[in-house]
């Protein structure tokens, strides 16, 4: 039975979750807020992995599990596959999504954007925007980590947004 989820609801929920943790529960402690959001993502990924692997044979190695994340898992969650997968064959994988859905509709806080664009403040504004976006990426990072952990692959996941709107997730498998 296919269930549908309203995309705008998910967008709003994610935005609200991030803003609640950043501005209310753990205000001024961005690291703690990030960790908490990541933990929520972890639980979600953990549960989704169980559901999405139901009808398939077990994975024989790490690459197969990562491929599953790139193809089927990503399709289920984001309706598209990961666009590019790179690996150094030593436990690090880079999953690149050229148009990451959860960042596609994000805009920068106008109060930051409207300040005089002298060199100094624009750099500051950019820095703030990157930071705000980074907060929104803890959740998807947690999802990937949770899914892989449940498949028996302990790992660390971080995100890289140096060339937007593309977004890269770096998975480092713990030996």
């Amino acid at each position, binding site marked *: 039975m296919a269930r549908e989820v309203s995309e705008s609801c998910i967008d709003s929920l994610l935005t609200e979750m991030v803003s609640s943790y950043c501005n209310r529960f753990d205000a001024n402690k961005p690291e703690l807020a990030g960790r908490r959001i990541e933990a929520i993502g972890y639980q979600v990924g953990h549960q989704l992995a*169980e559901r999405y692997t139901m009808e398939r044979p077990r994975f024989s190695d790490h690459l197969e599990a990562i491929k599953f994340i790139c193809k089927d898992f990503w399709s289920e969650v984001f309706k598209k596959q990961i666009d590019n997968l790179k690996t150094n064959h030593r436990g690090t994988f880079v999953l690149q999504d050229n148009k990451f859905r959860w960042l596609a509709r994000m805009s920068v806080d106008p109060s930051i954007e409207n300040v005089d664009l002298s060199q100094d403040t624009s750099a500051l504004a950019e820095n703030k925007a990157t930071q705000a976006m980074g907060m929104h990426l803890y959740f998807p990072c947690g999802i990937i980590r949770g899914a892989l952990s449940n498949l028996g692959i302990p790992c660390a996941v971080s995100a890289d947004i140096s060339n937007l709107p593309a977004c890269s997730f770096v998975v480092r498998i713990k030996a």
Partner: protein
Amino acid sequence: MIACVAVIGHQNNPLYIQSFTEADDALKLHHIVHCSLDVVEERVNNPKKSGPTLNETFLGLLYPTENYKVYGYLTNTKVKFILVTTDLDVRDADVRNFFRRFHAAYVDAVSNPFHVPGKKITSKTFAERVSNIVKSFGLSSAG
């Protein structure tokens, strides 16, 4: 008739175990389930014997005892499902179907945000659903 079903976590911790017999033989059934875990491990480590498809979740008949047949199923997340039945002629398709529905019930149970991963499943809905699946087991072949 199904005597006992069990869900075993990835560290061989019991998540759910339920017997469906009138007699007071729960301990014996738990023992059988416990023994089957070794067989599951053996099957996974020596994949040659595990049937036609490599790494299939359904492990088939683990071992027969005098009165019971024990079937196993291992998910991608290393959760094991064990089925102990008293029927002697069981169709493979029925068992596969049973495990598929059992797995689906398990997935729904652990997707509950109040369920703590790795802890026993205490959900009443899950218990009810499992007992319905157990009741309907083999009905298609009998009818």
